[in-house]
């Protein structure tokens, strides 16, 4: 099993800075198979989220036990602090989806700093892309369902009370930003945050290892600096990873709220 990316191991005495190549993994079970480490992270993440919520809801009681308290805290956070502030009471039916989305993205992100796994699966663009497309389909669907196809696009592109000449400018911009830019920025924001974070961690750790092992001597003392940075950055990454899951869900909720709103 290749849990560490062997293709990019530094060779010779020159330092090889980590790059996008470090995000390409060989198949886990040898050549010819398709199952790679990011897939393993996603499967494990789905299992963890499913099992935690199954255990949390299995013996639901008026006085919650430990697991039920954990589940209800997360659910309550999404319902009150994300959906409550953006969509309001109308948004109750989206809470299960948004809670699942939040937990799934948070688990996939945090796997970037868990020992052994140490790869955020969301740094691969395919996973955030699918999640963003699901959100995109949902907010367009609820908008069209509520206002009708014509009404939805009219409310989006021609807000009432706007002078006609400005509509010429505004209509294409609004259409572009709502239908095309939104899923793209959702995807890129999550992917590249995880990508850049993982790259910085790789740089500090590999740089420290290079100074300590490859260079040796007086440089070994200097390796304390990158290693210290890697520890600080790991905590920072933990914060960014949860924050990005929150941002993804917050923006999904805002888009749904915008599609449901009576006038924009």
């Amino acid at each position, binding site marked *: 099993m290749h849990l560490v990316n062997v293709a990019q191991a530094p060779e010779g005495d020159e330092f090889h800075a980590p790059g*996008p190549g470090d995000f390409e993994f060989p198949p886990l079970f040898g050549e010819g198979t398709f199952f790679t480490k990011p897939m393993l992270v996603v499967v494990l993440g789905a299992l963890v989220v499913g099992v935690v919520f199954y255990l949390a809801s299995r013996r639901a009681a008026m006085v919650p036990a430990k697991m039920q308290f954990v589940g209800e805290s997360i659910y309550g956070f999404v319902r009150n*602090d994300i959906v409550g*502030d953006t969509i309001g009471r109308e948004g109750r039916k989206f809470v299960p989806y948004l809670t699942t989305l939040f937990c799934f993205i948070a688990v996939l992100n945090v796997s970037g700093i868990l020992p052994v796994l140490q790869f955020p699966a969301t740094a691969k663009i395919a996973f955030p892309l699918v999640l963003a497309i699901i959100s995109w389909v949902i907010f367009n669907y609820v908008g069209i369902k509520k206002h009708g196809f014509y009404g939805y696009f009219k409310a989006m592109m021609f807000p009432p009370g706007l002078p006609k000449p400005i509509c010429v400018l505004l209509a294409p911009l609004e259409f572009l930003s709502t239908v095309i830019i939104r899923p793209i*920025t959702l995807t*890129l*924001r999550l992917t*590249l*945050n995880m*990508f*850049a974070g993982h790259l910085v961690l790789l740089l500090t750790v590999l740089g420290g290892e290079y100074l300590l092992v490859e260079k040796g001597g007086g440089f070994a003392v200097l390796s304390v600096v990158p290693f210290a940075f890697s520890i600080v950055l790991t905590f920072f990454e933990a914060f960014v990873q949860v*924050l990005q899951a*929150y*941002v993804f869900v*917050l*923006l999904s909720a*805002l888009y749904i709220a915008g599609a449901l709103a009576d006038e924009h």
Partner: protein
Amino acid sequence: MEGNLNMVGYGLAAIGPGVGIGLIFAAYINGVARQPEARGVLQGIAILGFALAEALAIIGIGLAFVL
């Protein structure tokens, strides 16, 4: 010395979002300092603005690697 000029460009491109995010959190801190009870409302808005400003830096790093 090896390297890619794209990364210099990305460094320059990150100045704008950096200033923007600084302004957003400065305004947030100001707001909370003036009215501490508004913290909950302001936090969501601040993080939303941060996410939107950060998207520019994120698009920049994407293009730095792609181009």
